């Protein structure tokens, strides 16, 4: 494994645990970014070690803070419950076996004022690093350490070529790219991670493409 100085001296975080507190806050934060709306109702389903020790590590507060848009080093984290109540956010914690996933995994069901809903599943894989493994009914795999673009589009010839050429035109270099689909011609999801920032106008261009239903951008997490 390659390490940066900041993996060793860092991250700056709210204690006590990089996996159970900082990682949890990061998963919550990324889930909210993917959802792209203010969450007013949220249910967390905790799996494995998260389910067993969430209380002692403040995993619950960290997840809730993340969903409210607070980063893992935000001192408001310890008062997450009070803040959620002030904001009128309804929250619930359950525990359940989520199957063959990392021991520190959580399923987050979010809904907004205008009745949009989304489910995100993420795992905290150690040292504050995380992995998002599912968005609604699509398996995915990314970590928030790059600018990430997620599309929902119809599986048609040329869609990928158009997206990558829009990015190339805007001088965005693709670091990693994965494509997921249920069946040929059905809905598909692209998860693309880039070295550069991606401007909102680029996102708009992709949104306006044929066969593209939705595009979400998650800016690189600076921690």
């Amino acid at each position, binding site marked *: *494994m*390659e*390490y*940066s*100085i*900041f*993996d*060793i*001296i*860092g*991250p*700056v*975080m*709210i*204690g*006590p*645990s*990089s996996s159970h*507190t*900082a990682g949890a806050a990061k998963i919550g934060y990324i889930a909210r970014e993917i959802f792209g709306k203010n969450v007013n109702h949220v249910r967390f389903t905790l799996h494995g*070690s998260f389910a*067993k*020790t969430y*209380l*002692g*590590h*403040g995993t619950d*507060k960290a997840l809730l803070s993340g969903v409210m848009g607070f980063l893992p*080093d935000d*001192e408001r*984290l*310890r008062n997450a419950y009070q803040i959620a109540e002030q904001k009128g956010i309804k929250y619930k914690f359950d525990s359940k076996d989520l199957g063959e996933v990392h021991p520190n995994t959580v399923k987050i069901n979010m809904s907004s004022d205008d009745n949009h809903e989304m489910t995100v599943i993420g795992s905290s894989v*150690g*040292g*504050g690093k995380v992995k998002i493994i599912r968005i609604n009914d699509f398996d995915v795999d990314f970590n928030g350490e790059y600018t990430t673009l997620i599309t929902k589009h119809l599986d048609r010839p040329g869609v990928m070529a158009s997206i990558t050429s829009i990015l190339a035109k805007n001088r965005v270099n693709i670091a990693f790219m994965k494509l997921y689909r249920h069946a040929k011609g059905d809905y598909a999801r692209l998860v693309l991670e880039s070295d550069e920032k991606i401007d909102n106008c680029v996102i708009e261009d992709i949104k306006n493409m044929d066969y593209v239903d939705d595009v979400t951008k998650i800016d690189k997490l600076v921690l």
Partner: protein
Amino acid sequence: MNYKNGKELLAICREKNIAIYDVAILNESVNSSLTEEEIYNVMKDSLDIMKSSIKKGLDENEKNIIGFMIGGEAKKLKKFYENNKSICGKTMSKAISYALSVMEVNVSMGRIVACPTAGSCGVVPAVLLAVMEKFNLDEDTVVKGLLTSSAVGIIIGKNACLSGAEGGCQAEIGSASAMAAAAIVEMLGGTPEQALNASAIALKNLMGLVCDPVAGLVEAPCAKRNAIGTSNAMISAEMTLAGIKSVIPFDEVVVAMGKVGKMLPVNLRETAEGGIATTPTGRKLRKKIFGEDKIQ
């Protein structure tokens, strides 16, 4: 500029006639999109957070700096050495109180710098700040000390491991202690060779240390193991600067630590299924905190 072990790091230092902290910052700027100045400033910010976490645990009302099993210990120790009762001497005692303080802030959901992990976040700040005060060092020297420790941490991460779940407490407190020992040596004008010599001694002294957190929480024995990691770093640097050599070189110690980590049963690697976690008192505390004894 890349180095995969201590030997390669020292070769770069010798060839360019520079210190470990110079290699750390040059290397990072090559491998990231950040300039040396930006990297230096992030390190300086981390140092400021370390300072405030030390201060918070010693100053703030005890009710706010408390976990399930620990809290208020840093203050007790401060009072003790201020009354000239210290057995270890003021510098060591102060350093230990700093380590305890950072850990108390960590368990009470305060802001800390994981270094290399949250469970070992007290060692490096405690050592660096206590040595800074003892020798009236300027801030630049201490930021460089952080850079020195980061290079040592990178080598341990590459060739062994840094998490309790992978290698037991030796991988967390042992690594933090080795990082801090090297930092003291360079901060006090020692050579890169001496810095890694101090790291080798520090890591050897804690080899085999198991990770056995009571109730699975980062409190007991973690806080007091930060104290031993702190004093061990100071002991190792002291021996080194006096000219004492580690019998086994740094790189070999690192590899040995990684192997010991792999040999440790999973019960002794952060699962709370062995060591002091499963003592009668450890079980009782777990039951008190979580309402049931989950260990069979």
